């Protein structure tokens, strides 16, 4: 597995094969943004771990070549983040992004540009939100037969204030596209959380779905677990773990450990 470990904008570990071209530039003097650029040439996987003890600004881009399938696994921990992601997908390119965050304060903007016919973006994001967190996700269906599946799950705790803004855009004439958004926040505080799902579609020949849910776990879910002898706290902890681990296939032990720090 290709792997990069970045601590406070410094690459502390890097192991990449020839299927990935990677360029980085140190922080710009004016905006102080650290650039990370990836070009994905052949089918491959990449795991990136970010850890920052001080404020970071990062601009991260992935260019995925035609017919290439790319899996990206990311974990992020740390304070004050301002992050911008851009994914450019050419014809029949596919990207599957799985991310787990445990950060304090973040503003993140992620854009998918589905430029080639048959391009597909699959995004599965999990976060434990204990401070201000705002995620903007834009998906541009710039070609026909493009598919996007965006899933955001967050558990809001302590001083958490979690916002998901998800916009999927299908332009006129881009036919046979499939658009799917699903966002859920389990809010364990009285703080305000927001999900803004936008489907901006200027074409009839599109399949589009979205779901957005903010709240607690349902009574039915709690009843089922409690009917097997788990008390309320244990049932809640198990549901949270399931909610955050769903779809996570990498670095599971470390992620479980992080979750256990909150819900043992």
């Amino acid at each position, binding site marked *: 597995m290709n792997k990069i470990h970045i601590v406070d904008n410094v690459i502390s570990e890097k192991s990449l094969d020839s299927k990935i071209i990677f360029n980085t530039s140190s922080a710009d003097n004016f905006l102080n943004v650290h650039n990370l650029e990836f070009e994905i040439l052949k089918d491959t996987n990449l795991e990136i771990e970010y850890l920052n003890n001080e404020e970071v600004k990062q601009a991260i881009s992935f260019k995925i070549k035609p017919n290439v399938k790319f899996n990206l696994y990311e974990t992020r921990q740390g304070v004050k983040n301002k992050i911008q992601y851009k994914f450019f997908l050419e014809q029949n390119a596919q990207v599957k992004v799985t991310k787990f965050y445990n950060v304090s304060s973040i503003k993140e903007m992620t854009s998918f540009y589905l430029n080639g016919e048959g391009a597909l973006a699959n995004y599965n994001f999990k976060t434990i939100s204990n401070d201000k967190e705002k995620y903007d996700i834009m998906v541009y269906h710039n070609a026909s037969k493009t598919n996007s599946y965006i899933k955001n799950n967050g558990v809001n705790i302590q001083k958490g204030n979690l916002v998901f803004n998800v916009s999927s855009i299908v332009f006129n004439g881009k036919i046979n596209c499939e658009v799917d958004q699903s966002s859920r926040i389990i809010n364990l505080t009285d703080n305000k959380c927001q999900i803004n799902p936008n489907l901006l579609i200027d074409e009839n020949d599109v399949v589009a779905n979205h779901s957005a849910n903010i709240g607690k776990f349902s*009574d*039915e*879910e709690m*009843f*089922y*677990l*409690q*009917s*097997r*002898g*788990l*008390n*309320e706290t*244990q*049932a809640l902890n*198990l*549901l949270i*773990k*399931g*909610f*955050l*681990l*769903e*779809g996570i296939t990498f670095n599971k032990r470390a992620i479980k450990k992080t979750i256990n720090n909150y819900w043992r």
Partner: protein
Amino acid sequence: MHKLEIKDLYVSINDKVILKGFNLTVNSGEIHVIMGPNGAGKSTLSKVIMGETSYKIESGSILFDDKDITNMTVDERARLGLFLGMQSPLEIEGVTNADFLRNALSNKLGKDFKLFDFIKELEKTTSYLQMDKDMIHRDVNFGFSGGEKKKNEILQMYMLKPQMVILDEIDSGLDVDSLKIVGENVMNYYRKANPGILLITHYQRLLDYIKPDYVHILIDGKIQKSGDFSLVKEIEQKGYDQIKKSSKTGTCIIKEISKSE
């Protein structure tokens, strides 16, 4: 020897009374079947026994081994030895069957929980139920077929070893083969652990495998008739209408109960 007693139970939800003076006693080693038309209160009964909080107990009581459990929480009842196999088992994404059962069992057994024994028993039980071994590592009921979900309920029953088993329409959604497996495994558990069983069903076909000692017909929130297995045949031939006609109970709202009180 264990005993579940339900005494003169009145239960409502959203101001509508569902159970209207329900009485029943189930002892260890007894198999009771409750049948009845749709909306009679069968599923309500099963959830109320287990302590589902969306229902309001207007009056009456539920006792387990002479201890009043009417106000106990769901998990307290489960730890006492009650088990509800549900009609529509819930899907829990991200929680594996193995994790779920390990949590439930270690919670019940405390220090006596042994991981090695747990794994061995889980493997053995999945093989009894002819379940795919991978199923224990899959998310609870997620993406399971109707039959797989019901088998999973029986798997949980086996693992948790309850003294009083309530099975709510465990036969719904089962094909002929799965029905046989589920039915036979319920009976295997019965022979092994001697629990009391309260079975809720619409159809006789499950009773080809699980032979009841008592059959009760629940209509309009109350047992209208009890008997042995021959009652099932009678219902199959004549339907519930005859019993309905002889029943004097009509629809009832809370105000009517208050008046009678």
